[in-house]
């Protein structure tokens, strides 16, 4: 059910304020419990043995010595999990294949990357568990490996799956390859478009995989009873996802598994899959005791995340008046060891901020011997934006037009075509450009070695399945339970929307996240969907509560329900002719609940549609040190259309955080592999994420073009902010130095080398 509000509510009392989050005090006092913070009596510690080889056939595994070590209570290998059918399930963009998933959780025939889980133990102490995994003997036949995406696509590349035939090609190839899938989207006639162009720019790009970098390693505690009932405490972006995937991997009914949502210490997409939960549950099942597994940081780097790296070529044509007439892109994404990179998203997002008649995007999903990629903030879109927004910047330079002006001239609007079919249904992009054009800092002159760069980005935003329950307590206070994990303040935003709808103060509403046995199914917290979809469910539940309260007030006054209105948190007579009744507060109605129908509660379960995409436009100023190649970010301004900011501070936080992750992606973060296919920088010292002293203040400009499909106009805020960043930085470096960088990260040695080869060629 979709509630249409053509004119979003204007007179808002709570929406748009900045109250303190319900989870705030526990988080500043150390009392909040994250995945690793749960303990049970008799608990064992699980530890995972991981492959030292990038690619190896597993001939045999002998666990007898580990099993015999005193203190070891259970040992498992991949074949302890039931076999899964080979089948791609779910929507194209986010397909799941449980045959792959169970093999990523624990290897069977082959180990496909350094760090791939091959066995696990549970023991009475972490030290014994660590000792025990060293006693497991794995007989490996080491195979040639491949890391790079272009090399993995070569004719003679070592094959990860000897029978993998590329999907999406007609007729089907006869030979296997590492290309899991080809996807193509197009509109118009690309070559006819290029024929009209005055200027054409074609460039090739490479981006490094980057890790989501959440500070909390994956952790869980599982207790599997002799009655087949299992409970898991874990940190994830969706405890229903944990329940669904874990039950499927274990081969048990979903209702035999209750998942309790721990606080999540960052996810950014990386906690939308399971790694340790099925292992802990299996070890608990075998030992009869609760089992806790906490990954080390090294394990997080070797075996989880990251987003895909890529190799891309983009060609675009423009007329001298600024009209972009054609765009063509080939995007090759590293899926990691199993298919499923976000390349379809990448193709769809690539040109989605531009109103193009002729465009084509071809994507390849390519496996290689590195950890399987996982979602990361607007998965796919930031990767392609590095290429596309760099090319657009060159187009602007060729025709001598301001880069914001060029974007404005080609900006999508309602009715513009998309490359995947439907027309754009919402605006908001132009407004982000205009916000920067009018920004006082945008025209400000810069000094030597300094430059300014502009870029834009698109993200779909999400909707989907959400369920919430709202209860009115005996004293008139209100409790919300939702099934959406809170990663960025959603408990607060749910409470704000409930307070607004019910007409009561924010402080009267308590907002919680319920376990999987206590609330209907909720899709993961991802795709910037929760404030939109779960928020919509909250508002609808409040509306049901209001109906109920009006009915009860009518009963108490002995009038018709139509004669009762709800206003400012009270039931009131609709007009003086109804009678001389004093308004009834929530507390007064709640006090009479027993005689007016019993508990006051509403559960709403929806599959929300009608989401509107997010757009962002950003500019940044950098200074490049010509002696070291170091790039310093001097200023960063990010405008983003969020529809409506329910809690503006948390929206700003999303923008500032997304931009900062993008800066890390642009300047530092990368996976360094040696010739043996080992990641050489699997720690925070060498995988260098931005720290406080690397950054200036990031200015978040909130643009509000409400989505009429949401009662308060919400679109979603979490992701699109990361999309333009790498290109904005690259374009700024181009302005500062005259050098166009086409690979990420743009770290000091890379920049220095580019500066030196540029000056050598002059």
């Amino acid at each position, binding site marked *: 059910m979709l509630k249409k509000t053509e004119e979003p509510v204007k007179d808002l009392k709570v929406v748009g304020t900045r109250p303190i989050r319900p989870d705030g005090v526990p988080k*500043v*006092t*150390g009392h909040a419990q*994250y995945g690793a913070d749960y303990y049970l009596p008799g608990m064992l510690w699980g530890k995972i043995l991981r492959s030292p080889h990038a690619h190896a056939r597993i001939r045999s595994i002998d666990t007898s010595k580990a099993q015999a070590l005193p203190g070891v209570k259970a040992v498992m290998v991949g074949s302890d999990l039931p076999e899964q059918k080979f089948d791609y399930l779910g929507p194209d963009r986010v397909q799941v294949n449980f045959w792959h998933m169970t093999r990523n959780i624990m290897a069977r025939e082959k180990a496909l990357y350094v760090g791939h889980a091959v066995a696990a133990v549970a023991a009475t102490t972490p030290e014994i568990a660590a000792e025990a995994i060293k006693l497991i003997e794995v007989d490996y036949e080491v195979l040639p490996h491949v890391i790079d995406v272009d090399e993995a696509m070569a004719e003679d590349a070592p094959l990860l799956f000897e029978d993998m035939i590329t999907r999406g090609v007609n007729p089907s190839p006869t030979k296997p390859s590492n290309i899991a899938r080809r996807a193509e989207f197009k509109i118009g006639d690309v070559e006819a478009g290029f024929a009209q162009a005055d200027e054409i720019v074609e460039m090739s790009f490479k981006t490094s995989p980057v890790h989501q970098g959440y500070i909390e390693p994956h952790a869980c505690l599982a207790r599997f009873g002799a009655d087949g009932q299992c409970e898991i405490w874990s940190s994830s972006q969706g405890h229903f996802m944990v329940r669904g995937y874990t039950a499927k991997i274990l081969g048990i009914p979903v209702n035999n598994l209750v998942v309790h949502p721990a606080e999540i210490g960052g996810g950014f997409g990386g906690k939308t899959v399971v790694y340790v939960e099925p292992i802990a549950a299996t070890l608990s099942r075998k030992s009869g005791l609760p089992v806790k597994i906490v990954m080390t*940081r090294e394990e997080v780097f070797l075996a989880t995340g990251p987003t895909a790296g890529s190799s891309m070529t983009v060609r675009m044509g423009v007329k001298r008046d600024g009209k972009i007439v054609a765009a063509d892109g080939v995007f090759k994404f590293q899926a990691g060891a199993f298919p499923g990179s976000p390349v379809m998203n990448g193709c769809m997002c690539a040109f989605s901020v531009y109103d193009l008649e002729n465009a084509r995007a071809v994507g390849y999903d390519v496996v290689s011997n590195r950890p399987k990629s996982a979602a990361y903030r607007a998965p796919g879109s930031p990767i392609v934006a590095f290429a596309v927004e760099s090319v657009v910047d060159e187009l602007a330079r060729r025709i001598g037009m301001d880069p914001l002006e060029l974007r404005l001239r080609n900006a999508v609007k309602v009715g513009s075509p998309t490359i995947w079919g439907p027309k754009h249904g919402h605006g908001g992009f132009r407004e982000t450009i205009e916000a920067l054009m009018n920004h006082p800092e945008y025209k400000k002159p810069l000094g030597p070695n300094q430059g300014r760069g502009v870029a834009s980005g698109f993200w779909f935003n999400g909707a989907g399945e959400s369920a919430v329950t709202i209860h009115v307590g005996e004293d008139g206070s209100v409790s919300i339970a939702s099934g959406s994990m809170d990663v960025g303040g959603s408990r607060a935003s749910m409470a704000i929307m409930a307070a607004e709808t019910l007409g009561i103060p924010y402080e009267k509403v308590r907002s919680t996240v319920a376990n999987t046995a206590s609330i209907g199914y909720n899709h993961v917290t991802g795709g910037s969907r929760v404030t939109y979809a779960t928020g919509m469910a909250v508002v609808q539940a409040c509306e049901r509560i209001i109906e109920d309260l009006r009915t009860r007030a009518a009963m108490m006054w002995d009038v018709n329900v139509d004669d009762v209105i709800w206003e400012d948190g009270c039931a009131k007579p609709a007009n003086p002719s109804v009678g001389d009744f004093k308004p009834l507060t929530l507390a007064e109605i709640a006090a009479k609940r027993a005689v007016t129908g019993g508990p006051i509660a509403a559960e709403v379960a929806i599959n929300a549609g009608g989401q509107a995409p997010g757009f962002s436009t950003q500019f940044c100023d950098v200074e490049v040190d010509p002696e070291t190649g170091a790039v310093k970010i001097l200023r960063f301004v990010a405008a983003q259309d969020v529809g409506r900011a329910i809690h503006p501070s948390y929206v700003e*936080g999303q923008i500032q*955080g997304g931009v900062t992750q993008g800066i890390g992606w642009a300047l530092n973060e990368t996976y360094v592999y040696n010739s043996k296919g080992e990641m050489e920088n699997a720690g925070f010292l060498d995988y260098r*994420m931005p720290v406080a002293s690397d950054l200036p203040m990031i200015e978040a400009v909130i643009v509000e073009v409400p989505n009429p499909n949401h009662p308060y106009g919400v679109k979603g805020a979490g992701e699109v902010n990361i999309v333009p960043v790498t290109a904005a930085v690259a374009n700024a470096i181009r302005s500062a130095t005259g050098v166009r960088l086409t690979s990420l990260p743009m770290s000091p040695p890379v920049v220095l080398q580019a500066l030196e080869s540029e000056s050598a060629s002059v």
Partner: protein
Amino acid sequence: MAKHHVTTTINGETVEFLCDTKQSLLDVLRNQLYMTGTKEGCATGDCGACTVNMDGTIVCSCLVLGVEAEGKSIQTIEGMAKGSELHPLQQKFLEHAALQCGICTPGVLVAAKALLERNPDPTEEEVRYWLAGNLCRCTGYNKIVEAVLDAARVMRGASNA
């Protein structure tokens, strides 16, 4: 091997524990004393999530051995509020929305408190460099820096009064 008996002071209370030679202070705090407010992000001293104050100096508790706590005075996040009264830094972190997931927050707060004890009037740059050892992946540090500067203002005001 026999365990070591350690007597130390944590948040003003005398605490005794037994630990192995190899055990880190972080491990003791979390898995023996169940003081899980101190977080493990890396166990290699790179992220600052396990920051505690030991005899007036901030340390990564993952790089300190449990036995090194003998005779020391240790302050963790659990000792920062006085009963139900939040420290000004805690209050300002809430008001400024300086946390999202909150996993880095205990370490950042312990580090920031040490800064303000040394330097009650830090510049933005001083705050940024002091906190450079505390990784946060959610916030981009903006609101953390703003909260620390605002807490410093409030604390200076309180001490002048």
